[in-house]
């Protein structure tokens, strides 16, 4: 995918550009708000990474301008401001996700990949399936190899989120934000415990595990074949 990084810190921008290329993506860099807006208007990018504090035009106003022009390119806002109110402001301005500095590159990559594969809002998928595991969003039924699996409501939402992003890395914070709607770091790694519970329900007794741990990044659900 083609990424536009609007970031004024040269080193950060170069690091992102290099890392994104290594991950198999193309990345363009704009060093200030005005040139970033101009490049984003060309509409050649699949996702924008916008720093909040930029020279010439701040990041939020770049996003607002794009949204008022009807652009629907997904935007990840990067900011040193990470409090509750700042995040709400960022999302209100039209950002699709908000990441606080300092961040891990794996976190950023997982998030932009999740953003670009997000189905359009009108597109209603009622059923997810990975390998022989399937989840019905309407009847809230989960089956593996035809056998019904009983899940708690939160486990269902956890699996639903993982399956919606099947084949992509999903980080612990993404799960905490999207499944539990919490934006803080729990002191203990609570997510790991929930994942291992879910894993024991969907993978236990099956030769091919579907729920994988990605070291140093998070989790991924995928058919073991690929």
């Amino acid at each position, binding site marked *: 995918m083609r990424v536009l990084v609007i970031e004024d810190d040269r080193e950060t921008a170069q690091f992102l550009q290099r890392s994104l290329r290594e991950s198999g993506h193309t990345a363009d860099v704009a060093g200030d708000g005005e040139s970033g807006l101009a490049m984003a208007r060309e509409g050649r990018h699949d996702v924008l990474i916008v720093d909040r504090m930029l020279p010439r035009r701040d990041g939020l106003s770049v996003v607002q301008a794009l949204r008022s022009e009807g652009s629907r390119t997904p935007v990840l806002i990067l900011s040193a401001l990470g409090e*509750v109110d700042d995040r709400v402001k960022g*999302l209100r301005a039209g950002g699709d996700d908000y990441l*606080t500095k300092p961040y891990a590159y794996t976190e950023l990559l997982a998030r932009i990949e999740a953003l670009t594969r997000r189905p359009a809002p009108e597109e209603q998928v009622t059923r997810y399936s990975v390998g022989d595991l399937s989840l019905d969003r309407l009847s809230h039924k989960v089956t593996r190899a035809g056998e019904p699996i009983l899940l708690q409501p939160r486990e269902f939402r956890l699996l639903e989120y993982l399956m919606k992003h099947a084949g992509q890395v999903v980080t612990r914070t993404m799960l905490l934000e*999207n*499944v*539990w709607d*919490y934006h*803080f770091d729990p002191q203990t790694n*609570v997510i790991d415990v929930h994942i291992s519970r879910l894993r024991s329900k969907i993978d236990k007794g099956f030769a091919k595990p579907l729920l994988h741990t990605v070291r140093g990044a998070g989790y991924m659900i995928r058919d073991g074949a690929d």
Partner: protein
Amino acid sequence: MTALIRLLGSTPFRLALAYMGAFVVAAALVVGFIAWRANDLLTNKVVETLEAEVTGLREQFQAGGPQRLATIVAQRSLEPGSGLYLLVDASGRKVAGNLDRVPRELEGAQNGSVFAYADEHGRRGSRLAVGVPLPVPGGFVLVVGRDIEDLSRFARTMGQLGLWSIALLALLGIGAGLAASRSVLKRIEAITEASRAIMGGDLSKRLPLHGSGDELDRLSESLNAMLARIEELIVALREVSDNIAHDLKTPLNRLRNRAEAALRNPDGAASYRDGLVKTIEEADELIKTFNSLLLIARLEAGAVAESMGPADPASIISDVAELYEPVAEEAGLHLDASAPRGLAVVVNRELVSQAVANLVDNAIKYSVPDGGARPGDGAGRPEVTLSMARVGDSIEITVADRGPGVPPQDRERALQRFVRLEKSRSRPGSGLGLSLVAAVARLHGGSIRLEDNAPGLRAVLTLPLRGVRPATAASPLRAGANAP
């Protein structure tokens, strides 16, 4: 000399001077008015008496002719008092009376007038009098007068007295003004000096108090209270920065050591990799600590008050319990949560959730003996209970465990930033968990207290129920919720 100039130019002295001036002008006006009125009154009185006498004498003349008039005039002239009489005939010769001749001021005059006359010692024009000339048929002229010398002398004396007393008053006023401004100036200068010393860095210094409790004292008192608060804050700030220095520098140093050790390791690439992974883990821990610190600082500044919204505390509690239930189970504990529904609080859901999560996290952490998870043995499984109750106008969220607890003398300290009681040093954590809870409680107008759970620790988070906003003011936090 300069001191005198400063004194003369001081605000209190200038005020006293202006006051003085206004007072003197007012006093002069009053005295002048009184003098004028008194003079008028006395003169009128004299003129009235004269007119009455003239009328009487005229009647005597009409009844008894010039002869009788002359007799009466002669008679009255002899009476002691201030009456002055003179009757002259057509040729100007004195017929009777105690004046020698018609005063010049009354010659040919129609009306009464003031005149001067010779006293009993013959000094001409030495005494003042008021007189009325009265033409009598037959060419006679009658002059009736009253001596007013004593009166006018009295008036002059009074006037001079008035002027002198005003002058004296002015002098006294200026003196008093000087004295008052000197004392006020001295006190203000003492205050200025003290504040200079404080600005110079001596924060323990206070403004001097006079002890009279007047407005200057009250001003100094409130400034002193302000200074005490500032000093308190600065001391707290210094303490915090010392703690930050300690708690950030220690892991930073560890991070550095780890990187250095990896670099020195002769095993090469594999050890580099291992070192880097550990370095990143260490950095992540640092970032977490840093974020908690920032959050606490922002909460203490009251910076997130705008994101408050109505919430059901029971759902906050059940959500946190649901998040931690598997963690508790894995630790061999039973997490029991109960909360009555239907109560509403105005809170930042995120922050209160985080506070409750921290309490539960601690309870689980300290319930596990140092040896690790204890085997589940059914009924004897240690419990962590999360409960909520309404107490008056507040709700109390209680998290209780069966761990080692906190001794009473350490409970207050445990709520402070970075304080990790000795026993807990071996366990993971930044020491910021409870202070974050305390900051969240304060932000919401509530409090946190630690109690004995006999055995174990019971943490009670109190939040006020008041001020539930209408539903339209829904938490903006919800705007960021993107769970499908």
